[in-house]
Structures are given as structure tokens and as C-alpha cells.
């Protein structure tokens, strides 16, 4: 009885950890931020958007957002929310290696330094947000 319980618990742990990893990789946890209002304090104005899918892209999006906003907006904040989308630039000759690669048939990199950098950026943005709201 005790042996069977240990076996069941081990399988549950195994399945849960693999599922968590797969969900993390497929961006399930990042989706939680999709509806989160992210503010970008540029000391002159505050931009709010709800169109952010992943944290990696959010930096590019907010950068473009800042560039695209007319100067007048920086003085008088617009009460109507406008979402700007980054124009897709197709440049086949400059195609770079994707972030995801099918791994070797033997092993796989589970966490890469890029993940750590991304997590750090996320943590930084969260702490900046908290500071701004305080």
C-alpha cells in the first residue's frame, strides 16, 4: 500500500514538473501579463498598453511606442488609450536563429542564460512598476 502510494506520488510529481516546464516554455505563465497594465515612466509622460504578450517583446513594443507618440502627447496625456503595433519588417536575408530550436535527440538545454536575462528583466520591470505606483 505504502509502495503504491509512493509510486503514484512519484508519477504525479514527474508529470507535474514536465507539464510546468512545457507550459513555461510555451509562454503560458507570460500570458498572465497580457491583460496587466504596464506603465512606462519616461519622466515626461506615462504610456499604458494592454497589448503586450511576452516580456521580451514588450521592451521592443514600448520602445516603439515611445518613438511613435507625437510630442504633443508627451505634454498633454491622452485619456483615450491607443495601442500601437510594431510594424512587421520582413527581411529574409537577415533572418536570425530562432529562440526555440528543436534540441538534439540526446539532451536539451533546460534553462538558458537568455531565460535568466529575461527573468531578470521581468523582475526589474515589476520592481520599477511597484516603485512607480508607490
Amino acid at each position, binding site marked *: 500500500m505504502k509502495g503504491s502510494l509512493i509510486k503514484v506520488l512519484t508519477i504525479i*510529481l*514527474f508529470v507535474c514538473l514536465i507539464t510546468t516546464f512545457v507550459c513555461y*516554455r510555451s509562454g503560458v505563465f507570460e500570458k498572465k501579463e497580457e491583460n496587466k497594465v504596464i506603465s512606462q515612466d519616461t519622466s515626461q509622460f506615462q504610456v499604458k498598453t494592454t497589448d503586450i504578450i511576452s516580456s521580451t517583446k514588450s521592451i521592443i513594443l514600448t520602445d516603439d511606442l515611445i518613438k511613435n507618440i507625437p510630442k504633443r502627447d508627451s505634454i498633454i496625456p491622452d485619456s483615450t488609450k491607443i495601442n500601437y503595433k510594431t510594424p512587421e519588417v520582413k527581411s529574409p536575408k537577415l533572418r536570425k536563429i530562432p529562440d*526555440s530550436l528543436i534540441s538534439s535527440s*540526446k539532451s536539451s538545454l533546460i534553462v538558458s*542564460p537568455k531565460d535568466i536575462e529575461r527573468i531578470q528583466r521581468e523582475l526589474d520591470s515589476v520592481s520599477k512598476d511597484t516603485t512607480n505606483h508607490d
Partner: protein
Amino acid sequence: MISDPLNIIIATAISFVFLSLIFIPMEKVFPAKENQSTFRPKWILDFCFFIGQYVLWSSLVLWSLNYFSEYLSSIIPISFQEKIKSQPFIFQVLEVLLISDFLIYWGHRLQHSIDFLWRFHKVHHSAQHLDWLAAHREHPLDSIYTIGLINLPAFIIGFPLESIAGIIAFRGIWAIYIHSNVRLPLGPLRVLIGAPELHHWHHDLNRRAGNYANVSPIMDKLFGTYVCPNHEPEKFGINEETPNNYLGQLIEPILPKKLWIIVKKYIN
């Protein structure tokens, strides 16, 4: 771009802890070889391969694939890429996965039959004790060959692999699982998805033992190399002399045999 060394160390440590947490309980509760301990012989050697893969070689592999990908994108007509991209997304996913499996099946089979490719691949097969850590025993040039081949269809059609990141993650972790010291038959699912008991036979002493497919054994079924006795192989490894240490394992495949005989005196 070179990542911050601290981030590399953190990523390596997190991966090691996470993988230990997934696989060690399974290896303890469902062992394929009951007498095999966690810190079995050559554990340190495999640990060196693990560290090497994360700290040193992953950047080299990525750099090579980046170079390869750029070259491919310059020779594949854009009209061809656009034609493939115009198909429904699900077809593109199936095409990429099936062609990848087909390529890696034959690529892997060639590694076992062509001596030049076997030189590098035998490093992986030199493990006499299989577990999740032994999965990482892989020569960096073998990694470039394997990862290049498996990603070739995606490179050719410019398929965004990020869109199937979950599937890729599952394949990656399953590739480690099939090496683990676990025996937990999957029943009828075994036809669709590989299991340790199948891959352990691939690591049998016989160089042409079969089960060459990546994660799903479908290709082995199709091409008649599927092997699945209802017991574990007696011994793992190869019938060849291999270096005992990390440096030797890395150097031996790239040196001519005569030169290796001289060098090995100093390395071993």
C-alpha cells in the same frame, strides 16, 4: 552575443536542480537497473559533459547554426518559402515535425554505419551506465550535426519554431527521459512516443541494435528497426576502447588515429 557568465552559471545550476528533481525520484522508484546508484561509476565524467554543454558548447552550437541558417536562407528561393508559409499553420507544424523526424532517423542511422560519423557519436554511446545525466554525454560536433539536421526543415521554410515552443520543450525533456534509468512501460502509447525501455536497447553493446528514431518510434516501425524485448539489455556501451576522461573524449574523435595514440599517453 556572449551572455553574462553569472547568468550562464545560474542557468546551469537551475537546470541541474530541476532535472535532478524530475528524474532522480523516477529512477529510485521505477529503476531499470536496480543496483545502479545515483553516483554510479563515471558520474563525474557525465557531469563534466553536462557543465560543458551548458557553459561552453551551447554557444558554439548556436553560432554554427546561425551561420548555417543564414547560408540556407540565402540559397532557398523566397517564393518557395512563401508557398509553404501560405499553407494552414497545422500543416506546417506537421510537415516540420515529420520531416525533422525523418531526417534525424536517417541521420542517426548513418551515424551508426559511417565510421567518420561514428567517431563523434560513439562518445555518446560510450556510457556504460545510463541515466538522465548520461544523456548529456555528447561531443559538441555531434550536437551540431544532430541539431542542424533536426532543425533543417524549419530553417528551409523559415518556420517560426517559437510558435511550437511547448512541443519542442516536451521533445527536449523526453529525449533526456529516454536515457534515464527508468522502466515504466507506456502500454499502447509506446507506438507513438518513445520510452526508456526502447532507447536502452539502442545503447546495447551492438552498434547496430536499432531504435534510431528521435522521440517517436514511428520511423523505426516504418523502416524495420524497431526493437523491444521485454527485458533490459545486459550491458550498455561500445565494444571499443574509449578515453576515461572529458578531455580525451573531446579530442579523440578529431585526431587521426596515429596521432591519438601519441596524445593519449599524456591525456590518460
